[in-house]
């Protein structure tokens, strides 16, 4: 009945809105996974990025300065994870969980300290990211108006997928990174320092999550809300698992969640209670994992103290 009206270009637009932050964060998680670091701090990194992006945009009056400060914030928070997990050999899962809560705390705290606002911060001085239609291509029917009408961060997200694919599988750096993740002893006996690659991977995930946060708070909406990532970072973690850390697969997984969120949103417009449709992305995520039935021996065992 509603299949026709559901699948129009407005739906695809909202699919991409939902997809881009998840995709960026998931690529960050993927790089860490490949370097042998299980990074579940994506949620907190993204939230820090979202906040810093709004702050940067507000004080500089430029959306791109906002994006840059989002990236800086993501890198800064991830450097704590890198130092703790790599240099101090702490448990990355405990660290990441604590950093996620730290991010919720510090952003809400600064929201009050800087603007004296609780909950949601909106202000005309926050400059949002504009979409940049690519001249001829954005005129194409259906997907054209969506795929070629993204923000700069959106284009970066779509470009990151092939770039990471190339770097990982076609360059020496990528080979060494994968070597560090799969056989650290072999890598180090060949003169590759695992720690350096793991640092690089974690900081890269910080930068990508910072971008993801900026897209969330300056692209999808122009505001900051407490805990506005609301589980997207976790969905990104699952996307990495589902795709077995392959960039193209991650894009596919992110698309799936983008659809789940967008269709949920649409059904809500059709009168379904929001409580049921809000749960959709998480349920879809879990069902996808169950259907995939893969072996995740790495992540689950012996992490708690």
């Amino acid at each position: 009945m509603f299949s026709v009206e559901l699948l129009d270009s407005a739906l695809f637009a909202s699919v991409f809105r939902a997809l881009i932050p998840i995709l960026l964060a998931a690529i960050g998680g993927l790089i860490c996974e490949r370097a042998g670091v299980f990074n579940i701090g994506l949620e907190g990194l993204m939230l820090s990025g979202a906040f810093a992006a709004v702050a940067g945009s507000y004080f500089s009056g430029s959306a791109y300065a906002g994006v840059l400060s989002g990236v800086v914030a993501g890198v800064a928070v991830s450097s704590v994870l890198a130092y703790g997990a790599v240099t101090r050999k702490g448990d990355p899962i405990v660290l990441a969980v604590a950093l996620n809560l730290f991010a919720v705390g510090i952003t809400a705290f600064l929201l009050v300290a800087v603007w004296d606002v609780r909950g949601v911060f909106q202000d005309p001085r926050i400059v949002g990211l504009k979409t940049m239609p690519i001249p001829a291509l954005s005129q194409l029917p259906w997907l054209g108006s969506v795929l070629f009408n993204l923000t700069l961060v959106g284009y970066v997200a779509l470009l990151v997928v092939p770039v990471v694919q190339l770097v990982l599988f076609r360059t020496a750096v990528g080979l060494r990174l994968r070597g560090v993740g799969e056989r650290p002893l072999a890598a180090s006996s060949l003169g590759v320092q695992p720690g350096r690659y793991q640092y690089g991977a974690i900081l890269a995930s910080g930068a990508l999550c910072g971008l993801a946060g900026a897209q969330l708070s300056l692209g999808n909406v122009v505001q900051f809300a407490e805990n506005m990532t609301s589980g997207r970072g976790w969905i990104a973690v699952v996307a990495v698992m589902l795709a077995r850390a392959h960039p193209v697969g991650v894009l596919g997984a992110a698309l799936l969640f983008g659809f789940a969120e967008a269709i949920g949103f649409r059904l809500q417009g059709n009168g379904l209670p929001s409580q049921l449709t809000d749960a959709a992305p998480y349920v879809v995520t879990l069902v996808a994992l169950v259907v995939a039935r893969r072996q995740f021996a790495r992540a689950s065992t012996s992490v708690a103290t």
Partner: protein
Amino acid sequence: MSVETTDVGMPAPSAPADRGRRRGPWPILRRAAMSLLGPAPVSIGLALVLGGVVIALAGADPITAYRVMGEGALTGPGLVNTFQRAVPLVGMALALAVAFRAGVFNLGGEGQMVLGGLAGTVVALFVPGPGLLVMLLAFAAAVLAGGLWGALSAVLETRLAVPILISSLLLSYPARYFSSYLVRFPLKEKGSSLVATEPVPEAVRIPSLLSESSPLGAAIARALGPENILVRLTSTLDWSLVVVALLIVAVLVFNRRTPAGFEAGITGLNPHFARYAGVRTDRLKVSTMFVSGGIAGLVGIMLVLGSQIRLVDGALIATNYAWTGLLVALLAGSRPLRVAVAGAFFAAIIVGGEAMQRSAGVSAQISQLIQAIVIVLIAIRVQVTWRRRAKSTVREQSDDLGRV
């Protein structure tokens, strides 16, 4: 072997006899100093310093702010409030500690707690019968609901290889939204502006430890005066305190005195060894998650029947007990008695943070900030040390090979 005591009266671990001689004349003092310089105290101290920096950046005076925090949490009504918060917080931390000790990383405490609260409330509202019996039935329903939701995550791992870490977290969201839906629509009290169920019957509510209307309570209140802290505590706190205390004892006995507790402990330390030694680790995961979720569910229903009286939409999540409880369990290293101490400490930080917000104008989020920093520092293994750290070697890296 004689037990040496330090000058703070704590038994100190005895060291090889020559160590004290070699290091100088003050081995006892030295050891006392070392225990104060252990990871937890140093991390807490450093976190408070960092919190102070943040407070100063926010434009308040850190010294004043911390004084307000201390007074707000430890004196008069604040102390009562601290105890009141500590009970569910310790309960949630205990729920997660049971799992962590067995090497199961349960991140879904929130959903398990919410479902427990929901199931228990439904029983409390709709099952007729004598108050105490219905209350116990509500407890049982809460344990069952939270426990089964937890066990579901474990089954997803043992049968379908979806890690508990992820499945428990993801399962929290449908639990939250489902509960929210029921409270908003089918269970909502008609004609009330509050998004909540009807209040549960008086007889089903958890009574306070010593009500001022009871003869004994009234006598004590008359003898000590209504402002006395003991009177306030016993009239405000309810029997959840006793339930949580019993739970601590039960977990303690389980950990130390039962074969299953021993198996859980070694599985947490080394699952490969445990499996080799004949522990059925898959079954252990499921039962551990059932117990963990069950305790979380129990905490949920005790909050509803104790202080909240009705299930209010989002109220159980707003307390943030599940996530703070996780930090408490990590700080306490999953040991029950330490969970109680760490839980009380974090509860004091929360109450103090609120006092700070009221009078020093600093956001109460400072408490979550400080708590998270404590755990980050502990995970980073901050400690004061004079020893040279052993450099990582090839041997250490070769252990990593086992992960692949």
